[in-house]
């Protein structure tokens, strides 16, 4: 199911599965199929309270600030394990936040995408707490395997920190992918759902990355924009999910086999980016030249 005309008033600005906007965010968190205990905490420490608060903020950004356009959520399994694999862009983790929000707002029933985040996140107070409580764990193979075997939905950016370091002029390019995610997918027999994230590079137009400043602050780098701070501009963002890819194997294959699978995922993401980038340009032209 793709884009089926303009969104109606009764529904969210959704181009995949129509989800009633009348349902409260709190109700959507309640509908998550996670084994919360009587304190509203699941075995990984994900907390309903923190998810609700985070979703209030993210949903405002998603609907009103970035006006996210999302297609293809029907490709994400409604139940069971899956790996959302996409391109990184935008200097800071705006893409991760919006992908998480898209699976919470656009899917019926909602699902929580759990990110495999950079190691430095959990060194910082508050950031560590909120990342943990919303299910965003350090990108360790142990975490990924365990979460997939528990039939969770993983969100992976195989470009890693180098992906968010792209400058404005490189915003639609892809840097080298890691290969670990394919071995994990094979080992756990998980489908890979490729997605393209568009607009991140324009929302945070990085002109250079301050690596020395980053080292001082304990992060890989600090993206600098023409207005210095990496605060996102209210640029329209897009998330497009592609058809799932299921690979055969055990995860112990030779490197060249794994690299072949990685290239298939990379090609799918590139196609999604190019296809929707063309549509994006067309829409922009129509708006500018009525």
């Amino acid at each position, binding site marked *: 199911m793709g884009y089926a005309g303009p969104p109606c008033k009764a529904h969210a600005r959704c181009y995949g599965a129509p989800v009633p906007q009348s349902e409260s965010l709190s109700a959507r968190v309640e509908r998550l199929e996670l084994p919360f*205990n009587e*304190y509203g*905490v699941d*075995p990984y*420490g994900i907390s309903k309270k923190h998810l609700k608060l985070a979703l209030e903020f993210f949903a405002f950004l998603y609907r009103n600030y970035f006006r996210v356009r999302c297609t293809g959520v029907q490709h994400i399994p409604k139940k069971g394990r899956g790996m959302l694999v996409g391109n990184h862009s935008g200097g800071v983790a705006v893409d991760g936040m919006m992908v998480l929000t898209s699976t919470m707002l656009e899917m019926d029933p909602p699902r929580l995408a759990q990110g495999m985040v950079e190691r430095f996140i959990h060194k910082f*107070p508050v950031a*560590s707490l909120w990342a*943990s*409580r919303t299910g965003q764990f350090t990108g360790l193979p142990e975490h990924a395997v*365990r979460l997939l075997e528990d039939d969770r939905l993983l969100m992976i950016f195989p470009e890693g920190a180098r992906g968010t370091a792209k400058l404005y002029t490189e915003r639609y390019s892809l840097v080298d992918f890691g290969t670990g995610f394919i071995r994990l997918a094979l080992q756990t027999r998980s489908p890979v759902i490729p997605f393209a994230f568009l607009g991140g590079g324009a929302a945070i137009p990085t002109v250079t990355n301050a690596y020395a400043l980053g080292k001082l602050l304990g992060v890989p780098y600090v993206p600098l924009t023409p207005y210095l701070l990496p605060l996102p501009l209210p640029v329209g963002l897009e998330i497009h999910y592609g058809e799932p890819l299921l690979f055969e194997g055990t995860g112990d294959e030779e490197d060249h086999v794994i690299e072949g699978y990685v290239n298939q995922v990379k090609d799918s993401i590139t196609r999604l980016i190019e296809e929707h980038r063309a549509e994006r340009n067309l829409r922009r032209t129509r708006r500018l030249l009525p």
Partner: protein
Amino acid sequence: MKVLILGISGGIARRLALRLRDSGHQVAGIDVRPWRDGPKDIQVHPVDVRKRAAEDVFRRWKPDAVVHMATVTAFTVPGGERGRINLDGTKAVFDHCAAHGVKQVLFVGRHTFYGAAPDSPLYHSEDEPPRALEAIPELADLVAADLYAATALWRLPDITTAVLRLVYTLGTPGTGTLANLIRGRRVPMVLGYDPLFHVLQEEDVVTALQLALEKRVRGIFNVAGPSPVPLSVIIKGTGRTPVPLPSPLLSLLMGRAGFPRLSVGATDHLRYPIVVDNKRFLAATGFQATYDEGRILRAYADSLPVGPGHD
């Protein structure tokens, strides 16, 4: 079965002794601390496990199994003596067991050996090395004792050795590291962090130890109960008030102003979780905790309530 419990005067060890006796085992113990009002049919030998008199107990009583719970923490015994008790004591226990035909040994260790770090896996498996040494020097001797006990698996193949790494115990009357941390009305937390804590009720600890003994498990096992919960939930669930403090201020206030005393490296435990995967133990013993998170916290709150006068 004749079971000798080392450190029998401790809270959990006493309960284990009574449970094993009631299950039809013969039980004796060694402890330099007295067990006041202990039952007459459980003989307690007031000797140091490192001394000759302890070996005499092994020689004369000839136990089939030994449960080694005679280790101490930084809170109970400071300095070098702690190392001598934990490490030299553990070596002496295995020497006596090997010399006097003991068939089975349970070493009761702690899950904190895995260490708390921002980039460590959330769920630790038994195959991971204990990393607590890097951040918490106070645990060094306990980690060394745990590793020494594990060497018995290949060094003493005739003895069925099990190294059990137990999560925090929480119950009545409230002994143990976590119980001491949350004993007061106000419980400190590190500002900006709220780590998961894995807890097990005392009665379930005893059940787990009894199962490990009766099922004759061999190897290294993590022992845990219900799913872990955030420290703030434990504090509020037991009727206490969390007080988040910046880390440097917390270090200054430890042991003062009504706050509990903590060892130097322990603030890492208040930042990052140490949670264990206990699938291996469940598969080996069929253990099932009878107390869930809520029941554990309510039981602690009922047995140790805090009122306006408490601190």
